[in-house]
Structure formats: structure tokens, C-alpha cells
């Protein structure tokens, strides 16, 4: 922190003190230098200095300085008046610490919610990419309606199709890339990095300059040189932010590469940490080998619409030329969307719902603080009356009340931003640790702070104005005259308070229903049978470097690994597989024999290559035939086990045992078994057709495999032993992407989980606020009607009757609000439909549940003070004022 006041404070001081500010600032600087001398300033030095600075902001100092010079009071007088208002308010709040604390906590929580949600929405949805002119950066996706493949932007294009797309004149700088993992060694450190292999230079396409060094040169790309660019985070976290790395050699899977650049911070494409030129040309790949994605920048003068029109023309040309060879091309589409859209479109509904929820929370917070302020109004009205009698104008009192609200809002803002920053950091850590990191990061930046401040300001004005209007209307001094018993004033206050409580109840019900929908969806989801036993399954990925493992060496490595891991204590079963649910990705076209396929349709299925032990390890349920066996070997007939979804889709549900199909080549594969489908593409999606082949029979097709280990106890306890086993075979072989299958399922529900967690938190908070509101109303009502209670009880009313009276009166606004809230809840449900799973927007069970919870909490909040009132001694009650 600078010893001299920053720009803002200096400006403020100049406004307040006029020409005197110059000398004041000069003196401050001089005394700071005198105090500190040449040494390092201590905390005490700073403290004294800030006290010195603060002394200029005292109202008396400002007034004295201003009136000492010509041009006197004016604006500075106003500021001094404001500061003295602040002092009055501060003293008032110190006299009511409980109220102040409750109000600040309420606002603080609301602002914290605002901060976390706007931080997440800003970082993940609104501004996920720091790419310059991001609106012109587009991803190009394809859809193959014949093959039943919807529009996709991920691992969806073949190199030939990339070259087709690159012909579009409305796109400049079209680049394509494939992804995979590479082991990168720099000095002593070896890291497994998620890598992209590029055709074309990503830097100018993204519109960015490297943080260090440079991007790929055209020559390097043409010659397919061994040059590499690192992501900023890897360079900082793993390679110690050593700027000497540019020009240094690194080993990529054992091959020497030269590091030519480092990406700027946050520039990640699908979490990619290493960027290298694609070592072979596009012409090498067949037309239907689809595993690439395309990024492009719109050419000057082109629009998204003109680009898409041109891409449509290209699609039709390609269809005419190749449809006989690749039947998928019939009716295929190429579509460009902004890169931001491509990545965050799926998050948008959740973001909108959470933003809406935060709006509700802040409305509720405002209403609640308004009722709290109103709750103090009887104490305040006496003070206000006195000040008014002593000559304070209505405007001054008004200003004081608003000052109070704004001070509370400011304190709440500080607390909320603090809490919110913690929350945002926690959420960011969660997002960053996911298997498929979202592009962007969650942080409390200037935009988020500004949003929080604006929300706090609006809330402060909002909750300040309503009680202020109430307190300042009519004859201010009446409470001096009739000793506080102005019954019409109390009636009007109670009316207002009830209205506010009704409003709170409506908001609370809507929030409860909103979170209820999601919780209900979650329950439905967790009731879904994933198709196998997901518990205690540890998975991790191993990529055998092609440079070190020839094809023939791959399966022996994994056989060895399975044997070693299987012998470990606490391991029940072990398998290796190319993929596992809930996220299988390898898909291929299949040609079915003896099955009538509608012309043009091209059946496809997910292909899982695995050790035969995968089936018992996962606990797949056998429906017909047999599992893959150890005896299925290269010499014996090619066999596969299919899932029920494949049978339903392509065999009309009839037993397919003994039927045969082809994948690409000429060899026929015989179906020997059917297993129950797993939720292989996400818990909330219907299972996709899938078949399993044995790596014993088809060895060496995949150098990247997952190890799947079923453990007796906590899966992570087995991890060190498994690592040892890997090291025992190959000391340099890393494992990565370590997670349990349960975690993988949880991650596939990230959007829904975050939304559910936040909305439940907000719902609970809403409930507490509504309860506080109800409690306040009943407390106030009973305190004002003590004498009436005494009369009733003296005339024979039972305690229960008295309790009932108050509870009934308090519950009316709650029920009224609940009815209103139910209507809102229906609309909310429609707004969040994409987040719901088998739950209707107006789900009666959810609405009823929310209403019951609200009513129960409302009853309790009303009952406590009502019962207290009924315990009054009638004689004393009658004597009271």
C-alpha cells in the first residue's frame, strides 16, 4: 500500500479541503518520509500514517478549514454534514448491535451469493475467453442426420472435411487440431500434458500474441518441425515460470522439441497445455476418420450468416461428390457458431436460473432488512420526533435514515465480497479439477465487484426507502404528544409489516420450489440404475508412448499390469478398457449382416476394447449368451458382446446371438453375448448402442487404456499400491486422469449439481429470512396488544385461544404469499426446464412440499412469540401501557 493517499483519496481530499488539500497532502508525504526514513515501513508506521490521513476527514476539521477560507461552506459543508450523519448513525447502530449484526449478516449473505454467481456467470458464460474480437472467432460443427449424429463441435471432423471447410472465402485462418496426451520432459520434470496437434497457426486465429516467444511459423508448419508452445499455467506451475525456457529443448514422448513460445494466461482450448504442429498431412487420413475440430476467424466483411450460407454450398458440393463413397453425406450440414457459443451454450440455462435466483435472494434480503428497520421504528420514532422538535428538517432526517441504510449496505457489501471471494475460489478449484475443464475461470474481478456494489446500493436504497417513508409521514412529533400510543400509526405499521411478510413468503416459496424441482430431479436421477455397480471402482489412464512401445508390446504390458494389480491386497478385480461409462466416446460405423437396414441409414455404435475381465469387474449383467473369455484369442473366431441398447436399436429386440457384423474392414465379428446397457453417455441420457471387443483377441489397437480396479475398501487407499505396480513394470510410465467411477458420474452432472447446491442454499436462506419476518410481525403484534391480551384472559380466554389468535393473524399473510409464490414457482419451473429431469415445471408434489415446509417454519416462527404472549400474567398485562 502506498504511503501517500491514492488518486481517489487525494481527489476526495481536494474536493473537501480546496486549496488546503495541497499542503495537507504535502505534509502527509513529508511526515511519512520523516517517520520511515530509509527503512522498511512497519505495520505501526502505516497505522499511524492512516490515522493522520483520517484526521483530515473529521467533520470539524473540514468545517474549520473551509470556513477559514473564502468560498466557505458550500459543497464541503454538505460533505461535513454527511460525515456527521454517518457519526449519528454509527452511534445509533452501536446502541442496537443485535439489529445491526442481523442486518449486516443478511445483506452479507445476499451479496456473497451475488458475488459467487456473477463471478461464475462472468467467468464461465459471459467472458469465458480473453480472445480479442471473440465475436469473429468461430467453431465449425457438423451434423450427419443419416447417421443420427446431431450437430457437434467436438471430435467430429475428418481432415478432408477440414480442407473442404478451409475453402470458404468468408473464413480466414482456418485451423484444425487433434488432441491427445504427451509426456513432456523439461530438465528433471516429466509431465503428462493434454496436447493439441495443429494444422495451421493457432495464435493469429485466436488473435493473440504469445506471452513469451512466438507461435509457429508457416515454414515450421509446412516442414512439420518439432516446435512446441506451452500453456501459461503449465509454464508457471510445472516449469517454474522460467522465461529461459523459450529456445530450450524439451522431450515430447522422448523426441526433442524446441519450445518456441508460451501462451498468454487463460488461453486454453479444451484445457490444452501443449501445442505442437501435426506431424503428418491431412491427405493421409481417410474421409470418414472424424476426430478433429476446426477453429476459424471470419474474414473482413463476412458475417456468421454469410459464412454459414457458404458452408451450406460446400456441404452440398461434397455431398454430390462423395455420397456414394460415404453415405453419411446425404443431407449433412456444416455450421459455424461463435467459439464462445460452442463452449458455453450448455451452461447458459443454469447461469440464467442462478442469476434469477440471486435476484430473488436480493429482493428477499431487501424485504427482510426493511422489516428489521421497521421493527426499530417505534424506538426510532421517538428519537426522530425529538430531533424534529429541535429543528431538524424533514430532509435532514430523511437523509439520516438513508445514510443508515447505505451504511448497513456498505458493511454487508464488505462482508459479502469477503465471503463471496472464498466461495468463488472454492468453486473455481472444483471447476479446475474436473476431468474436462470448462474454458474460463471464476474470479472476483472488477466487473463482479461493480455488480456487487450496484446490487448493494440498489438494495440499500430499496430497503431504506420503505421504512423511511413510513417513519417520516404524517405528524412527526405525535409520538411526543401521546406518549407513543398512536394506535393508527401502529396499525399502519403492522399492515406494512404484514404486506412485507407476505411478499417474503411468496419469494421463499418460489425459491424453495425452485430448489425442490432440482432436488427432485436429482432423486429421480439417483434412482436410475446405471447398469452396473459403480461403487469402489478406481480408474486411471495410461498412455504408452508409441516411441517406446511397439504395437506388439502394448497388450503384454497391460496383461502384466493386470496380473500385478490383481495380486494386490484389497483388490477384488481388475481390467483395462479403452473407455468406461458414463462417458464413452469411441464410436464407429458398423455394417450388420442379415438385417434389413433402411437405405441410407448407417448404423453406428460405441466401440469398447477391453480385457475380458472388464465385464465381471464392472459387474455387467449378462442378458443372453456369454461374456468375453480369456480363450477368445487371435486365432479363434472374432467375437463381440453387445449391449441391450444395440439389440433394441438394430435387431428390433430379437436375440442376436450368432449374428455377425463388420467394422470397417472385411472381417466379420460374431455376437456371442448381450449385456444390460449401462448409462454409457451420461446418467440422464438413454444408453447408446455399444459393443465390447477383447484386447486379447485384437491386441495393440489402443496405446491409451484405462485401468479399472474394483477394491474391497476405499478405492483411493489402493492408489499408492497401484502406482507401485506400474512403476514395477516401467519406472517412467505415468498414470493420470485418476478418479473413481462414482466421481466420473458426479462430474457428468456438474451443471445440475452446482445449480442444485446453490439453489438449496438459497432456498434454506430464504426460509430463514421468511421465518425471521414472521417472528418479527408476531413479536410486534403481541407487544402492542399486551393490554388486550390481559382483558381477554381476564374475561376467561384460554392461553391456547390467545396463542391461536396471534398465530392465525400471522399465518394469513404467509398463506397469501404462498399462493402468489406457487404461481411464480410454476414460471420458474418453465424457465429451468432444461435443468430438470423427469420433473414437470408445476410438479404438484414439489409445490406442496415447499408450501408445507414454509407453513411449518412459519407456524414455528409465529408460535414462539405468540406463546410467550399467552404466558403473560393477566394482572400485569392489564397494568401495562
Amino acid at each position, binding site marked *: 500500500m502506498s504511503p501517500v493517499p491514492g488518486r481517489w483519496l487525494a481527489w476526495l481530499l481536494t474536493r473537501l479541503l480546496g486549496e488546503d488539500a495541497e*499542503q495537507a497532502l*504535502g*505534509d502527509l508525504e513529508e511526515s511519512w518520509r520523516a517517520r520511515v526514513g530509509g527503512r522498511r515501513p512497519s505495520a505501526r508506521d502505516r497505522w499511524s500514517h492512516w490515522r493522520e490521513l483520517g484526521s483530515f476527514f473529521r467533520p470539524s476539521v473540514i468545517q474549520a*478549514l473551509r470556513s*477559514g477560507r473564502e468560498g466557505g461552506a458550500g459543497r464541503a459543508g454538505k460533505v461535513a454534514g454527511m460525515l456527521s450523519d454517518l457519526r449519528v448513525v454509527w452511534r445509533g447502530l452501536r446502541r442496537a448491535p443485535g439489529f445491526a449484526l442481523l442486518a449486516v449478516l443478511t445483506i452479507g449473505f445476499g451479496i456473497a451469493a451475488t458475488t459467487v454467481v456473477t463471478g461464475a456467470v462472468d467467468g464461465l458464460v459471459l467472458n469465458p475467453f480473453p480472445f480479442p474480437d471473440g465475436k469473429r472467432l468461430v467453431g465449425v460443427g457438423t451434423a450427419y442426420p443419416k447417421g443420427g449424429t446431431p450437430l457437434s463441435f467436438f471430435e467430429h471432423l475428418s481432415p478432408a472435411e477440414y480442407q473442404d471447410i478451409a475453402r470458404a472465402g468468408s473464413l480466414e485462418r482456418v485451423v484444425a487440431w487433434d488432441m491427445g496426451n504427451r509426456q513432456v520432459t523439461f530438465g528433471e520434470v516429466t509431465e503428462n500434458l493434454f496436447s493439441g496437434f495443429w494444422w495451421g497457426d493457432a495464435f493469429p486465429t485466436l488473435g493473440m500474441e504469445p506471452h513469451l516467444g512466438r507461435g509457429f511459423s508457416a515454414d515450421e508448419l509446412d516442414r512439420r518441425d518439432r516446435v512446441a508452445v506451452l500453456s501459461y499455467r503449465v509454464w508457471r506451475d510445472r516449469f517454474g515460470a522460467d522465461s529461459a525456457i523459450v529456445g530450450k529443448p524439451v522431450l515430447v514422448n522422448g523426441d526433442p522439441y524446441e519450445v518456441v513460445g508460451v501462451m498468454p494466461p487463460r488461453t486454453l482450448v479444451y484445457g490444452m497445455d501443449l501445442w505442437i504442429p501435426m506431424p503428418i498431412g491431412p491427405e493421409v487420413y481417410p474421409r470418414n476418420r472424424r476426430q478433429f475440430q476446426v477453429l476459424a476467424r471470419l474474414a473482413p466483411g463476412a458475417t456468421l450468416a454469410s459464412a454459414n450460407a457458404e458452408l451450406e454450398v460446400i456441404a452440398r458440393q461434397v455431398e454430390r461428390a462423395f455420397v456414394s463413397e460415404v453415405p453419411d453425406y446425404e443431407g449433412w450440414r456444416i455450421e459455424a457458431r461463435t467459439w464462445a457459443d460452442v463452449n458455453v451454450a450448455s451452461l447458459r440455462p443454469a447461469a440464467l436460473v442462478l442469476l434469477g435466483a440471486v435476484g430473488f435472494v436480493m429482493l428477499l434480503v431487501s424485504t427482510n432488512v426493511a422489516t428489521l428497520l421497521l421493527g426499530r421504528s417505534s424506538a426510532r420514532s421517538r428519537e426522530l420526533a425529538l430531533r424534529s422538535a429541535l429543528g431538524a428538517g424533514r430532509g435532514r432526517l430523511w437523509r439520516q435514515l438513508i445514510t443508515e441504510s447505505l451504511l448497513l449496505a456498505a458493511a454487508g457489501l464488505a462482508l459479502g465480497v469477503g465471503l463471496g471471494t472464498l466461495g468463488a475460489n472454492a468453486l473455481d478449484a472444483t471447476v479446475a479439477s474436473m476431468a474436462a475443464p470448462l474454458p474460463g475461470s471464476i474470479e472476483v474481478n472488477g466487473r463482479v465487484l461493480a455488480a456487487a456494489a450496484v446490487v448493494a446500493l440498489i438494495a440499500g436504497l430499496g430497503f431504506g426507502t420503505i421504512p423511511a417513508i413510513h417513519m417520516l409521514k404524517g405528524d412527526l412529533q405525535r409520538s411526543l404528544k401521546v406518549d407513543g400510543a398512536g394506535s393508527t400509526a401502529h396499525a399502519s405499521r403492522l399492515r406494512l409489516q404484514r404486506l412485507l411478510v407476505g411478499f417474503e413468503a411468496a419469494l421463499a416459496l418460489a425459491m424453495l420450489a425452485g430448489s425442490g424441482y432440482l432436488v427432485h430431479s436429482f432423486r429421480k436421477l439417483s434412482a436410475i440404475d446405471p447398469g452396473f455397480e459403480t461403487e469402489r471402482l478406481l480408474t486411471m489412464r495410461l498412455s504408452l508412448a508409441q516411441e517406446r512401445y511397439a504395437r506388439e508390446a502394448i497388450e503384454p504390458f497391460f496383461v502384466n499390469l493386470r496380473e500385478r494389480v490383481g495380486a494386490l491386497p484389497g483388490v477384488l478385480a481388475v481390467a483395462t478398457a479403452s473407455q468406461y461409462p458414463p462417458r464413452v466416446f469411441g464410436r464407429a460405423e458398423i455394417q450388420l449382416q442379415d438385417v434389413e437396414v433402411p437405405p441410407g441409414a448407417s448404423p453406428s455404435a460405441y466401440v469398447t476394447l477391453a480385457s475380458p475381465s472388464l465385464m465381471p469387474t464392472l459387474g455387467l449383467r449378462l442378458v443372453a449368451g456369454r461374456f468375453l473369455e480369456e480363450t477368445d484369442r487371435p486365432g479363434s473366431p472374432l467375437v463381440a458382446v453387445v449391449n441391450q441398447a444395440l439389440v433394441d436399436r438394430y435387431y428390433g429386440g430379437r436375440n442376436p446371438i450368432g449374428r455377425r457384423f463388420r467394422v470397417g474392414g472385411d472381417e466379420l465379428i460374431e455376437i456371442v453375448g448381450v449385456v444390460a446397457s449401462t448409462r454409457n453417455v451420461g446418467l440422464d441420457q438413454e444408453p447408446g448402442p455399444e459393443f465390447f471387443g477383447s484386447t486379447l483377441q485384437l491386441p495393440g489397437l489402443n496405446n491409451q487404456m484405462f485401468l479399472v480396479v474394483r477394491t474391497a475398501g476405499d478405492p483411493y487407499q489402493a492408489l499408492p499400491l497401484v502406482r507401485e505396480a506400474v512403476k514395477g513394470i516401467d519406472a517412467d510410465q505415468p498414470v493420470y486422469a485418476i478418479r473413481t467411477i462414482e466421481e466420473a458420474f458426479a462430474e457428468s452432472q456438474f451443471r445440475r449439481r452446482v445449480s442444485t447446491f446453490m439453489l438449496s442454499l438459497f432456498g434454506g436462506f430464504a426460509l430463514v429470512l421468511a421465518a425471521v419476518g414472521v417472528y418479527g410481525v408476531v413479536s410486534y403484534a403481541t407487544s402492542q396488544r399486551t393490554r388486550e391480551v390481559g382483558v381477554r384472559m381476564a374475561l376467561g380466554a384460554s392461553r391456547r385461544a390467545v396463542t391461536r389468535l396471534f398465530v392465525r393473524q400471522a399465518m394469513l399473510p404467509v398463506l397469501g404469499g404462498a399462493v402468489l409464490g406457487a404461481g411464480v414457482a410454476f414460471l420458474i419451473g418453465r424457465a429451468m426446464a432444461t435443468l430438470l429431469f423427469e420433473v414437470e415445471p408445476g410438479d404438484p408434489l414439489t409445490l406442496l412440499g415447499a408450501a408445507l415446509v414454509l407453513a411449518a417454519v412459519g407456524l414455528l416462527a409465529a408460535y414462539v412469540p405468540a406463546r410467550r404472549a399467552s404466558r403473560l400474567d393477566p394482572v400485569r398485562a392489564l397494568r401495562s401501557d
Partner: protein
Amino acid sequence: MSKGDFLGELEQVVLLAVAQLGDEGYGVTIQTEIARRSGRRVSLGSVYATLARLEAKGLVGSKLGEAMATRGGRARRHFRIKPAGLRALEASRRVFERMWEGLDQGAEGHRA
């Protein structure tokens, strides 16, 4: 002596410091002079507020000096006591002396 002419306690202390410092009186030196002689820490804000009142009463005069690097390029405002200031100090001193008359012995006695 009318009420307006009477010097408050802090006013006296600040005015005395200005008188002591001669040509060297400005915010920081006045503050340190008071601290050095009385062990009392007065905030810069209070010093300035008091000086402003003294100037308004015509007891001190001030003029702006040169801009200086040690002050971040800002000028000092030098304060000098005016004859009216000296007279006011004298008057205050006489008031106190008269009030103290006859108590000196006793006070000494208590201190012993």
C-alpha cells in the same frame, strides 16, 4: 476581553508553537514542535483546523512556499505569528497568571 478573543487550549499551544518556530512554522514542524515540547501528539488535521481558526481571527498569517520534491512536488504553507497573535498570547498568559496567583505555593507543596 470578549469571548471571541479568548484562546482555546489547543489554539494557545499551536500559536505558541508557531511563535517558537519563527520562519520555520508549517504543518509538520508545528506538529513535531508540540510533540517535542509537550509530549503530546496532535493530528495534522487538528493542527490545520486550529491554524485555520487562528488565521480567520487574524492571529497568524501565511504564505505559500516553493514546491518541493520531498513533499511529492507540493508546496508548504508557512505560518507566522502576527502582532495580534502575540497580544492574544500575552492576554491569555495574564489570565492564567492571575488565576494561578496564590496557588503556586500550594501546588509546589502538593508536588513535594
